């Protein structure tokens, strides 16, 4: 089981990819996330070859869409997860997936170190909470996210502290809307 992170500033690396097309930063992100995306896709039912190919696609999307990443609203892990999930729907279910309107207007968000660290720590705390769940409950969440439960089987009672994350994102959205007007 992978341990909670050693404090690497993933958001900072992704911002370097965004602002300076920094290949070394990309390589560091790739080494950490590509094997995780591959594992996620294989747990979701993809064979090794397809999972490898899709993980490459996911990492290329990370490079291409770096400007859509808002460190105040999501950690890099969460952002990578959403790209990998969409890739899975695309590759395994061959469905079209509607996504909410992007909130990517205006100037690039100034990387706010504190906000970005908070988002990353949120994800780490969530990981710890996940590890502490009773095995049965944890397995149910995993099955839902690995695509092993139908939507009518999904119960949203996760036992995870999601309220604080929601509140933080809500604040970030309010700030964003405020800048917009």
């Amino acid at each position, binding site marked *: 089981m992978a341990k909670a992170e050693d404090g690497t500033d993933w958001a900072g690396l992704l911002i370097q990819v965004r602002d300076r097309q920094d290949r070394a930063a990309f390589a560091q992100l790739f080494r950490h996330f590509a094997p995780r995306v591959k594992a*996620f896709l294989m747990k979701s039912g993809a064979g090794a070859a397809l999972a490898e190919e899709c*993980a490459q696609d996911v990492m290329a999307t990370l490079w291409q869409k770096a400007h859509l990443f808002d460190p105040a609203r999501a950690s890099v892990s969460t952002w990578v*997860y959403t790209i990998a999930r969409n890739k*899975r729907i695309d590759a395994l279910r061959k469905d079209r997936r509607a996504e*909410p309107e992007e909130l990517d207007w205006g100037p690039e968000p100034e990387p706010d170190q504190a906000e970005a660290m908070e988002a990353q720590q949120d994800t780490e705390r969530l990981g710890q909470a996940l590890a502490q769940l009773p095995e049965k409950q944890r397995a149910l969440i995993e099955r839902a996210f690995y695509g092993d439960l139908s939507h009518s089987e999904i119960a949203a009672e996760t036992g995870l502290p999601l309220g604080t994350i929601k509140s933080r994102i809500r604040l970030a959205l309010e700030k964003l809307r405020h800048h917009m007007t």
Partner: protein
Amino acid sequence: MTIRHHLSDPLLMAYAAGQLPEAFNLVVATHVSLCDECRARLGAFDAVGGALIEEIEEISMGEAALEAALSRIEGLPQATRAEPLKPAGILPAPLADYVGGDLNAVRWRRIGGGVKQAILPTGRDASARLLYIPAGTAVPDHGHRGMELTLVLQGAFADDNDRFNRGDIEIADENLEHTPVALAGEDCICLAATDAPLRFRGMLPRLAQPLFRI
């Protein structure tokens, strides 16, 4: 505009997990486009996925994977940020994508009583359609077999229990029998999705049902 009727936690989690039928995805994405509260709740469920990615036991990529990735991004254009949003039309972006434009691009079909609908192209496990209900008109009395989501885009409707304005979503299941009425004022336009055919209580609508796929 204050949205009072929101998505449920199970729907948001199923969307975050990528497990909804395409037609329901469309309704969720459209509602979230209008509702920052649900956008934030969805962000929290997405974060569960992020935590799983972080905790997962990794599986090594092939030998030359990093070199392949680096040469692939060489010269790969990075998308730039969008222009500031134009004054929005009636249809939020994900829905406009399905329609191929805003309201004037919708190809309505009359289904009687002044009501019009346009079925949207989605996967077959659930269906989505736009409904146009003239102000003051009742939608035929109906119950539901599966789950039905109705999102108001323009005007408002009310049933025996509540009122639904732009951005509000009604989540109905087999336990709900109701008679929604489009309120006076603006004609009501809704996005509706269901994973089962609706059943009408009158004889005639039941016969007409297979023809209209309502």
